[in-house]
Every structure is written in structure tokens, then in C-alpha cells.
């Protein structure tokens, strides 16, 4: 009976992982509807695998934010934006 209960728990856990996986990015973007937030947050607290998955996305998002600040994807943007700023100034002159 105990073994059966453990298997049942495992199946429930896997279902929850799958479910959380579907909504994880929406949750991390802060756009998950209220009714699901507690389920996802609660699961992330005790599931190491899903917790690591969430950490991975958080790190990537943080990195993309740094990239945005430093212009890493398009370093040439700074020159283009400066040219556009000068053009905008001429419109207002």
C-alpha cells in the first residue's frame, strides 16, 4: 500500500511539473492569472527540478536586461541612436 501511495504521489508530482512547466514563463513574466499563481509558486518551493528551471529563466532574463543596458546585441545602436537624436534636434531647430 505504501509503495502504491508513493507511485501515486510521484504521478501527481509529475503532472504538476508538467502543468507548472506550461505556465512557468507566464508566471515569471508576472502575467499568470491569480487562480494559478499559488499552485506554481508552491510547487517551485519544493520541486528542485522546476526551481532550477525557474532560476535558469530568471538568469537569462537578468542577462537580457544587462544586455539591454549595455547594448551588447547591437553595439552599433549607440551611433545610430545618436544620429537619430541629432536628426530629431534638427526638426526642432
Amino acid at each position, binding site marked *: 500500500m505504501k509503495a502504491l501511495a508513493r507511485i501515486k504521489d510521484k504521478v501527481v508530482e509529475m503532472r504538476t511539473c508538467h502543468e507548472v512547466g506550461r505556465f512557468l514563463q507566464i508566471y515569471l513574466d508576472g502575467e499568470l492569472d491569480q487562480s494559478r499563481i499559488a499552485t506554481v509558486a508552491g510547487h517551485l518551493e519544493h520541486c528542485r527540478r522546476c526551481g532550477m528551471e525557474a*532560476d535558469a529563466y530568471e538568469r537569462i532574463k537578468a542577462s537580457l536586461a544587462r544586455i539591454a543596458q549595455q547594448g551588447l546585441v*547591437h553595439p552599433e545602436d549607440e551611433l545610430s541612436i545618436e544620429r*537619430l537624436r541629432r536628426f*530629431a534636434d534638427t*526638426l526642432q531647430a
Partner: protein
Amino acid sequence: MEHATAPDERRRRQAFDRYVVPELGVLLHVARTMTPTDQDAEDLVQDTLLRAYQGIVAFDGAHPRAWLFTIMRNTQVNRTRRKRPELLDDAADAETVVQEDGGLSPEAAAEAHVFDEAVADAVHQLPVRMAQVIELVDIDGLTCGEAAEALEIPVGTVMSRLHRARRKIRDRLRREGFAPRGGML
């Protein structure tokens, strides 16, 4: 004696500074999704700025990005009509070059620098349509709704491209060793 239109002109400049100038970077990135080269994108932004400047007096201040994207789209339609160039094509991949990092403690900065290089490279390797949404939403900070407006696609499509793009970035980083099994990514 002050010219009769001076107050209008002042309002125009103030509104332009408030609603348009802060969006130059976003406009450039959106323009890149509509044009084949970076030079075309810059030209498109210039034409958009000109039209925005002319029309800003009538703009009510609500949803400036949506207003600017509409101007940009219309401008691009007119430009395409004028030029009659080759038929529609995806914008070429932009080159990715990585520069130095800063701001954190030396150790953390070094680690972040290597990681950011890998992420920037992963963004560069994405299919064009996925890279577009990553740049607009995760880098430029547009909402999914704003990106949908800019790209003229449904919000659901933006979200699904965004999620797939992040998954691809994560998978690539793992393959490159940023994700040792059981490690930090």
C-alpha cells in the same frame, strides 16, 4: 514681437521630447523588423520622426508607442510603394558583437560578462522571428501587446515565440556548458 505660432511650436517640441525622443531605440529596433538593412531601418526611423513631428500637435498623448508604430507602418508602406523593391523578405540577421561588462563586483562581473556574451550569442543564433520578439520584449522592454502591435501579429503569437525563443536560449546555454547537470542553469 513674438510670432503667433510660437506657443504651438513650443508645445510641439515639448510633446516631441516627451513622447517621441525617449522611444528612439525602440523605434530603431522595430524598424529593423520591417526593413532589409540597418541603413534602411535608420532611414525609416528618420521618416517616422519627421511625420511624428508634423502630426504631434493632434496627438492626445495616449499610447505613444502604438501611435508611433502606426506612423512607422504607414511610412514604410509608402516607402515600399515608392521604391518598389524586391518582394517581402525577412530582415537580415543583425550582427552580434559583444562588449565589456561592468557594475558588479569584479568576480561577479567577470562571470556575468561571460554569461551575457553567451546569451547575446544565443539571441543572435535564434531564427529571425524569435530574435525579434526577444529584442522587443526582453531587451527593449515592450509589453507583449506592444510587440504584437509593432509586428502586426496576435499577442498569443508573440508570447509563443517569446517562450520558444527563451527555451532555445536556455537549451543552447546548457549545451555550451553553462548548464552542468544539476548545476546552476
